[in-house]
């Protein structure tokens, strides 16, 4: 079976970019990543449907028909993708309303571990610079953050 190299490359680039974006912390970027991922996977589905042909309508010409089933499946996937994208967008907006940013927050265990570490309860790897407004911090690092 011969495949269309353009489609494969497009799918690969889209999915690659999507993975990069998914590793970000901001929900808006994750969302763009998921949209790219969905489109990449849909293109992959078209690759799976085999070589292109004429429109799959009986009596509309001669020659090879393209397989209509994957196109129907991709249409379904696009509709579902639209719905989830809208939902995630609403959620990112709600997160921005509540916290002032749309970063994905730590889960409870992570937060507990980070707090314990910071409070020196379980680990001595954290050291709080108490009540010093950047006083004993290295100047440039203090500014940088």
């Amino acid at each position, binding site marked *: 079976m011969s495949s269309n190299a353009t489609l494969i490359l497009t799918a690969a680039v889209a999915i690659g970019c999507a993975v990069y974006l998914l590793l970000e912390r901001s929900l808006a970027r994750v969302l763009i990543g*998921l949209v790219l991922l969905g489109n990449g*996977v849909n293109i992959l589905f078209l690759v*799976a449907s085999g070589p292109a042909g004429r429109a799959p309508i009986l009596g509309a010409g001669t020659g090879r028909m393209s397989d209509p*089933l994957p196109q129907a499946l991709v249409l*379904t996937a696009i509709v579902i993708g639209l719905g989830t994208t809208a*939902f995630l967008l609403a959620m990112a907006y709600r997160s921005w309303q509540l916290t002032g940013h749309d970063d994905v*927050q730590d*889960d409870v265990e992570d937060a507990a571990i980070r707090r314990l570490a910071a409070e020196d309860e379980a680990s001595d790897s954290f050291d709080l610079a108490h009540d010093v407004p950047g006083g004993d911090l290295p100047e440039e*690092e203090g500014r940088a953050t």
Partner: protein
Amino acid sequence: MTALVPLPVVLPLFGAGVTLVLARRPRVQHVVSTLVLVAVLVVAATLVVQVDRSGPEVLWIGGWPEPLGIALVADRLSALLLLVSVVVSLAVLVFSIGQGMTGDDSDAPLTTYHPTFLVLVAGVANAFLAGDLFNLFVSFEILLFASYVLLTLGGTRSRIRAGSIYVVVNMLSSSLFLVGLAAVYAATGSLNLAQLSGRLAQLPGSVALLLQLLLLTVFAIKAAVFPLSFWLPDSYPTAPAPVAAVFAGLLTKVGVYAIIRTQTLLFPDSPLSGLVLWAALLTMVVGILGAVAQSDIKRLLSFTLVSHIGYMVFGIGLATVAGYTGAIFYVVHHITIQTALFLVLGLVEHRAGSTSVIRLGGLARLVPVLGVLFFVPAMNLAGIPPMSGFLGKVGLIEAGLRVGSPLAIVLVVASVATSLLTLYALAKAWNLAFWRTPAEAHETARELSVHQPQLQPAGPRDHVQVRGSVLPSRDLEEARRVISDEESDVDLQQLIEMDALPRRLPATMVGATAGLIGVSLALTVLAGPLFGYAHRAAVDLLDHRQYVTAVLRGGSR
């Protein structure tokens, strides 16, 4: 009788539409959704009897010529799981009617709850009845979409936090599912399960292995099998009690069902059963160790949920009739018992304001009925004889011993250890929450909170120094906020003093919970016939000629 097959999907969807229209009349909404679920219950029970007597029921939707349309198939396994899931959903629905689902910050009932719940039930039913992989994908999307909405009900801070992780993980797994579907279609030219079972066997081994790995990964995310279980214990506890209950009962089990179906029908001589057994082992052990470390009973139960998925995967990995029999029985047992426990926690939360063992104490005196309601399913989950949890575990252990390979023996040992650790974790929660006096709990909570930092304004402390590098203290601030948002600041003793607790539990909530616990006890009494049924279902699964001929009557392979 084939006309019955689509009803479990169609009726809830119809009900969802009606309840959405009736959004302004909550009482009518309650009646409609209860009636719909009762009707589906009757249909599912009829299907179980019918399918057991005369073989799988198949319906090709839309009147297309045979291998083209969408097939709905009810065989023994799917009919049984359908029945159990409808029973559980009905109990949860009645419970939530008693609770009066409200957002956290307002008293207005959420009008979207009932339609979304019914859509969830439709999605679960469709997943059990799906006869082709794409229909399975669509039903996953239906139930996931409903679950996104239910998980973030009210849009509070903690639910949005947990929800964003849940949604992203599930969208990712759905994309992976689509990749798997594309690969399967490219390799075989079909997505119908019955057709695939013939065609996949003719593929070269490496291609089939790739397809199997793709599908297994997707379903393992849904079923929360270690190492893909990380999302579950974080997202479920933040949801409202009835939602967490129905998720814990049904959503992961749909993933387990999909694993069972594809492993038996599509990849019968799987080279991966060793891998599946390792996954089962790690799921059990890691899950229960997580549970032991928890102080909130809801989180504890979420970890036991992950851990006990391992038992079902254990049965699947054995790939024998006895293994599948045990796994099917365990799925049925676990759906009822895990949901019942989450409902009990909903009662605890309603009556005592918290589910954290640090803040609870003396519930046995305060609300004796809660003690009984918690104790029975907890012991059942831990596997105390003669209850159904014990019988399910014995079935699996026997199957493991009969296989007798070293890995199977290791798993038998691990499953006994997991059972004991479950008992330990639940007994600890039982002792702390039910048998201390509230005053003792208050003392401990106060002692613990001495070490807890007070929230300070971010003003002077803009940065935190960590071994030379500097972090913005916003990070630390946020860590505190995540934690303080999860737990309330008052414990039970203070609530009693403030007289801020509801005097009584609504009878509907208690009734629904007690009813579900009754069902789980009935499973113990009916264990003989149920094991017989599970055995017949397992035989059907391993010898799938009956399934294939029932679906493809025209012989179009």
